[in-house]
């Protein structure tokens, strides 16, 4: 059993409150140790989660937490980390970089912290980089795809990622557009670091592939309407839209297209829309959309033995579900693989020291994971465990579940 505490709102009383949360977390975390009393009698070590649990990518946040919980449970069942039980402390950054930085600062005060798992939002992660490195914390990225998050210029680089990489994602999205026979595309990007990260990779990929980019349009967070811009797109003779946005803004774009009767224009979407309640927000049946969404993992598509095992464990813990309807399944798989790889590294380093674990992570020879079988997932220069050949395009079925339509 794992204890989760979200700390939101009460930042004013934060220092006192944090101590309390910490104590509660520790005490509740210790409670199930009765089971492992003999093996796990040592002080618990902490793995932090810093993600959005309440604002715009709730599904993604919960998926990351569940993947982490399942991995931590398995690690604790097989003796914990170097005999220490592993306990999760989760903090909600609500997609707000300032909150993210605050969370990282709070994690830095916790003794026995092994690493922090990040969330969906690239802007938050980018804003946190300074604080992460100042405090020498290990940052494991299960979702945020921004290229500069990994190529961050820090040395040593404390970021390890099992997720998309926008630079690679750009290629895959452009390739898909080309495969669809589109000649001219319009980019619709959120006006954040993540949007800009994709602007760079998509324009580069389009140039390489000889695809013409008609225009680049930006959408603000929480923008209420996109129809004015969509009218411009409608008037142009673009063949399709490449969408880089989270669920709320993605839904604003799609609903605008519904209003303007533009559903015949194909949408090729980055996976931001799959991290939140996109389906609930759109005013059209999902299977009426011509939309392809970028994914790295799907329980049905990635048929590794680990994936099957994880799906069974997921059903056992969170209730029976259809293989297609695990919300934001990528988050579950990425977080699970990251935590397992962290455990491998800690064991091989035989230490919780950040520098030792970082080196050990860089030197994992192979890991039989959920997403795939990783061969040398990380190195001193390579911090992305998944690359374009691991990505695929998916779409939504009538119930809004992600289904894989394109073979790998």
């Amino acid at each position, binding site marked *: 059993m794992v204890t989760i505490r979200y700390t939101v709102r009460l930042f004013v009383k934060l220092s006192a409150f944090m101590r309390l949360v910490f104590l509660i977390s520790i005490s509740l975390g210790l409670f199930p140790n009765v089971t492992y009393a003999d093996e796990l009698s040592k002080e618990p070590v902490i793995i932090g989660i810093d993600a959005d649990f309440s604002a715009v990518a709730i599904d993604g946040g919960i998926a990351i937490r569940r993947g982490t919980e399942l991995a931590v449970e398995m690690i604790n069942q097989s003796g914990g980390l170097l005999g220490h039980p592993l306990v999760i402390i989760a903090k909600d950054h609500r997609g707000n970089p300032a909150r993210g930085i605050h969370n990282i600062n709070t994690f830095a005060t916790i003794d026995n912290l092994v690493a922090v798992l990040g969330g969906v939002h690239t802007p938050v992660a980018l*804003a946190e980089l300074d604080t992460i490195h100042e405090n020498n914390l290990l940052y494991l990225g299960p979702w945020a795809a921004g290229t500069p998050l990994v190529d961050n210029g820090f040395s040593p680089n404390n970021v390890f990622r099992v997720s998309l990489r926008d630079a690679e994602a750009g290629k895959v999205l452009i390739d898909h557009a080309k495969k669809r026979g589109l000649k001219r595309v319009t980019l619709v990007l959120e006006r954040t670091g993540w949007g800009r990260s994709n602007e760079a990779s998509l324009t580069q990929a389009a140039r390489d592939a000889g695809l013409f980019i008609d225009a680049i349009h930006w959408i603000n967070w929480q923008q209420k309407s996109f129809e004015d811009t969509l009218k411009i797109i409608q008037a142009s003779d673009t063949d399709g839209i490449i969408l880089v946005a989270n669920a709320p803004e993605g839904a604003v774009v799609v609903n605008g297209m519904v209003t303007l009767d533009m559903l015949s224009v194909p949408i090729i979407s980055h996976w931001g829309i799959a991290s939140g309640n996109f389906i609930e927000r759109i005013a059209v049946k999902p299977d009426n959309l011509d939309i392809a969404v970028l994914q790295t993992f799907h329980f049905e598509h990635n048929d590794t033995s680990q994936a099957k095992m994880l799906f069974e464990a997921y059903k056992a813990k969170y209730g029976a579900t259809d293989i297609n309807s695990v919300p934001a399944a990528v988050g579950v798989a990425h977080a699970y693989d990251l935590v397992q790889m962290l455990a491998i590294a800690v064991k091989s380093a035989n230490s919780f020291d950040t520098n030792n674990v970082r080196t050990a992570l860089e030197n994992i020879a192979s890991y039989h994971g959920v997403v795939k079988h990783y061969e040398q997932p990380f190195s001193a220069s390579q911090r992305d465990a998944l690359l374009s050949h691991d990505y695929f395009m998916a779409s939504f079925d009538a119930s809004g579940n992600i289904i894989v339509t394109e073979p790998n």
Partner: protein
Amino acid sequence: MAPKLSLRQLLVRRMLPTLTGLIIVVAIMLFTITFYFASEEISDDQQASLDGLKRDLSYLTQDTTRQLADLAANDIIINALVDVEQRDNYLPMFFRSLNLTQARDVSFALYDFSGALVIQKNWPEQLPSTLEQAWRPITLVESESYYSITEYGVLFSVPVLLNEMAEGALVMYVASLQPLLRPYPRLTEQVVTDGNNTVLFSSDLSFVEQGKLRFTQHTTQFLVGSDSFGDLKLYSISSFTSAFSSIRWLALVILAMIVGTLLINLHIISITAKQAQDTLTGLYDDIIRRVRNEEKPVSDSVPLEVLELSKIRTSFDELLTNLTEMSLSNEQFSNVIDSMGDMLLVVDNSQTVLLCNRQFDALCDTYGEGHDATIARLITKLHGKSKGELKYTDSKGEASRILWRVQPLLDENNVEKGKIYVGADVTEQKALESRIKILTSAIDEATVSIVISDIKSEGQPVIYANGAFADLTGYSREEILGGNCAMLQGKETESSSVFGLKTAIRNRIPVETTLLNYRKDGTSFFNNLILTPIQIDGEVTHYIGIQQDVTKKLQAERYLQEAKIKAEESARMKSGFLASMSHEIRTPIHGISGILQLLEKTPLNNDQQHYVSLANYSVESLSHIVNDILDFSKIEAGQMQVEAHPFSLIEEINQLENQYRLLCEQKGLSLLFNNQFPTGLRVLGDAVRYRQILTNLLGNAVKFTETGTISVTTNIVESANDQLLLRCDVKDTGIGIAREKQPGIFAVFTQEDLSTTRKFGGTGLGLSICKQLCSLMGGDISLESQKGIGSTFSFYIQLERAPEEQSNGQQNTDQVSSIKTGKLKILVVEDNEINQTIVKEHLTTHKAISAMSGVEALEALNKFKPTFDVILMDCLMPEMDGFEATRRIRNGEAGARYENVPIIALTANAMKGDREACFAAGMNDYLSKPFDVDDLLDKIEYWASVKKVPADHAS
């Protein structure tokens, strides 16, 4: 002696001071009232001014908060909180363009969730720390908007919301409240201060300066109103002089009015005094002239006189005239006393007659006693009395009664000089009084309550009520007299009855009604009230009311009504119970009957054959009894209806003949049919019920006849409009029915006597049912019988001639039976396992599959690959009944191939309407349980072939 004053001088001297005093008092009151209302108005102005100020403040806070919230909801602001890296590219520009009020020096700042400044515009270097901190917990933690108005300035903060929680705050600051409140003209000077009287806003800075507000120095020169807005204090100030300037002119007007009034009054007094003086002088002159018998000088112009003085003059003139006419003649006096109706006699103390009138003389003459004797008797009899009645008898013996009154004759000194006798003839009055006494006591003692109301008087009061009224209502006469009978009415008295009464009284007509009345003690009773108008001289002046307590009578009626309803209800329940029981009994009987039919088909030895036939016979008898009970129940419950279908009369009779022929031969009876109608006659009517009647009568005839003949005579009489009257006599040579038993033979549960029941069995319902059926078909049944000789039952029913072109509505089984259908696939939908078994056993030549309910049937139809040819559908089943299942099949829920599949209803309940319900649900045919095996097979084969034929044609 003081010199005499003239009237005019007196009036002026007396009235002027009083008048002046009064006017001064009124003037003072006027001033006071004016001042009071003016103060009220000024205070209202103050309040209006304060309300306006409150509105302004409220508008300022709400509108600014709203505008700020709109800005905070702008996606540029939200995006800026997320897009930390590049917000500097667009946020400053957005911020520079911010402005909400016309006030200059407005500052804005955007803070992140932790309260750290993100960007600002004009933000002051230093703000008091209280102001800097106050908004944070409310806006950043509680996600609520906030404002504060203090001496340090005005601050608004609103949360920047992401999914309903604050991720930052937009804050606006203005150094002072002064520029924010619009400087438009105000009713009064306005000042806003904080709790410490520090001025935050002043509508006229030259009037009240910024700083501490003090009122001490000029309090008397100002009027101050105050109110509060949150922590703020609001003042409305106006100077005394300006406040009351508006009523200054009013004081002048009032002063002018007082002076004017004084002058006018003075003038009026002098005119009045002069007028009075002139008139009185004139009157004085007139009187002097009259006394001196001088003529009024003609030349005098008539002076203007006031009414009162003129009246005095007139009265004085009349007085003079009267005095002149005072000398009345003696003769005139005698005439007067003679014209009196009463007798008058005046005697002095020595009993000498001083005066008597003509009537007294007449009395003396009429009763022959002579003057002196009459007087002597009168004086003697009435000596010492003030009145007395004397009886006088005339020569014819008729008596008169005179009532005498005696009064003393007094002189000027009140000394009695003699006596005055006045006599009135009261003979008639006495007779009337006695008559009235009799009537009154008769009414008084009457046992019905009687009241009389005077409807011409106000409130139509009761002027009479007898003793019975008091007994009935509990009100004593004193209580009701002068009152109105409406006092008996109460809250539950029927208003319609009261209205009826009032209408009748208004129209002066008699009325009778029964209404709920209340006694004095509050108990109610039903009052049967008869009101009769009393006419006097052609005009209705009174009403006489006769009242009777009919409560018990009404109660008795109601008990009877309730008893009747209960009895009917009980009869209905009984019938309902019988109907449902009969149905419950029929189901197992069908089971037994079906199983017996199956058993008969198996190889049996003779004994077994015999037992089975005995069992069969018993089941048939039981079935017959149950049918009788069911029919009877239906009749009693009013559910029995006759139908109208065309049928051939001769076919029905032939069938019956075939049925009974064998039975009669077995008993050694001869059976004769005499049909007196064209053999081809087709009629419109209920063949089933017709057959039922005839079967019943024939069955009885066979049952009760040991030897001889049974003859059935049928004839048809045609009337207009194709109406046919069928008359049928069933005559037997059986045991007959005794004459005294005949009248009840058609009643329920009747056989001739109990021994008959024991000997011949039966329910005793048959003839009763026959009679009911006959009357349902517009006919009747009758009996002629002689004990030991035989009986003739005759009935007639109404039929119609069947339309020529109408063909037989039912399928012609003969025609299609030749079409061989081969082995059919049949779905039997039936929840009763016994019935299911029976049907399936009968269908062994075909392939039958069974389903227990409509739901199962639909499943089976959908699941089975081979197509069923016919569906047999029970109507009443759990889960989904046959009607619903049929509707669904017809709607294609079992697939397109079954939309037209033949469906034959199987129903145990041969109630009226079942057949229609089956066809309405989309079934093709109808079989009533228990059914005949051959019937079942015929119908199945017919419908299978009907379905197949068009299919063959199509191929």
